[in-house]
């Protein structure tokens, strides 16, 4: 695991393994999710992998009626809108994710701050597998 470069490609590969991973600067301790190879706090370049517990709170969200083609292909549309959000992780970092398990037909009832747990939405298989980071209410 240590050998993996601190990159978006590695981040996605970890998602395929149901792991939400970030990088921590060995010099100043700053945490980055998704990982960065250059620390933007101290410009240190020595990083280590850290696995997130997958617990967090909803910081902001939207319920999308008109989505991009790949979401429409999953069956989302005006009648069945989906939720995307920003999640504050317990570890202090913030991530973008799909938010599952909420009543998207009543977006006005969704509350910021609700506790969430990570889930990993796998699409495709083998070499073609891709994984979307999602969160659902805890």
């Amino acid at each position, binding site marked *: 695991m240590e050998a993996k470069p601190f990159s978006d490609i590695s981040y996605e590969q970890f998602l395929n393994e149901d792991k939400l991973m970030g990088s921590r600067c060995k010099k100043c301790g700053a945490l980055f999710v998704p990982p960065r190879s250059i620390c933007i706090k101290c410009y240190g370049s020595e990083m280590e992998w850290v696995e997130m517990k997958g617990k967090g709170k909803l910081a*902001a969200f939207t319920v*999308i009626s008109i989505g991009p083609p790949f979401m429409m292909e999953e069956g989302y549309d005006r009648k069945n809108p989906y939720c995307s959000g920003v999640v504050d992780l317990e570890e202090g970092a913030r*991530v973008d994710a799909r938010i599952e398990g909420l009543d998207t037909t009543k977006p006005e009832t969704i509350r910021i701050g609700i506790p969430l747990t990570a889930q990993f939405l796998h699409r495709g298989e083998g070499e073609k597998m891709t994984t979307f980071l999602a969160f659902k209410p805890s």
Partner: protein
Amino acid sequence: MQKKRKLGRGVAVVGAGMSKFAMYPDKDSKDLFAEAFNEMRSSVDKGLEPNDIDALYVGNFTNDFFMHQGHWGPIISDLIGLAPKPATRTEGACAASALAFREGVFAIASGFYDIVLVSGVEEMSKRPTAEVTEGLALASVPYESRVGFTFPGVFGAIATDYFAKYGATRDHLMNVTIKSHNNARLNPKAQFNMTISDLMKARIERAKKKGEPVPEWKDEKEALWDPRFNPQVAWPMYLYDCCPISDGAACMLLVAEEIAKNFTDNPLHVIGIGQGSGRGLHAAPSLTSFEANKNAAAEAYGMSGLTPKDIQFAEVHDCFSMAELIHIEDLGFFEEGTGFKAVEEGLTRLDGPMPINTSGGLKCKGHPVGATGIGQLIEVWKQLRGEAGERQIPKKDLHIGAAQNLGGTGGTCTVTILERR
């Protein structure tokens, strides 16, 4: 503390022109640019010999995706007879032409050129909406688009945090939309030059003609609350919170200050320019402020020696109603978290103390993305020269105005301050 920046020599605006922004099935980028260029020429009070232009900068964002052509510098330069002079395309998503303006300013301030045409052009409407959305997503933050965020979605998410923090509601966003439409009603160049009431009447007429149930709305807000009139795009962004798809072109003539009098007795002076870059929602210090805005504003205020109180009116990048509130706070016109109240109290109306988007903004004037930055500055030009017609700001001694342009979801922001002396 921002370093105080200055130009090597002064730069003035002496001409400006734009096409009407609209959806044109029968006109392409070159046709629209020619319209803008001709209007610019006729706006130069003492005339312009086009051969005197030293160089051209063209802002454009998505024509490579939509029109399968990306090399717009020479195409436009040939169109207006400038070839073989230098022509450069600038790209900064929806802030592409504000970057063209900046490059033009730097080219003159450096002493290299004296007369520069800065411009922007975009052709979007010939593609289906899904493709336009895909094209615009070229400027998205990859981590966001990966999990389904669209542009309205990002501003929707920003709005949910803004609502939670400050107590604003959809009703407050509607105030922004209604104001934009009221201003656009007075702007013949606006894509939607009509009020919400005008649009409601049209909808009622259409229902009557077709024998459909006739909507009964008691006022503009009731129509905006009606999902049949105003459907959800990305909560809490509804159709009327979003700018349209547009085609258009705009250009401005910049010259060295010392020769401005050869072109007009009424030039505008570039007294502040600023730019900034920003990050995605997950990495930004705040969801309700753009760090790129703050950097751009600090550069522009620093250069001009002005404070937000000195700006008499502004055009800001209201790609979505929510964005207008963020910008008027980021630029310091109103305290953080109070923009929605300022709009509610009418402070940003045409006849208010701080008019915002007198053109109708992107929402109503239209948003041909690469032309928008210069389009905004043309409104500042018209207002400062007293040429804004019915929508002329009723203020005595109008002499300082600003334009703020945004690319992506805050990835690129610019602030430009112009002065009439």
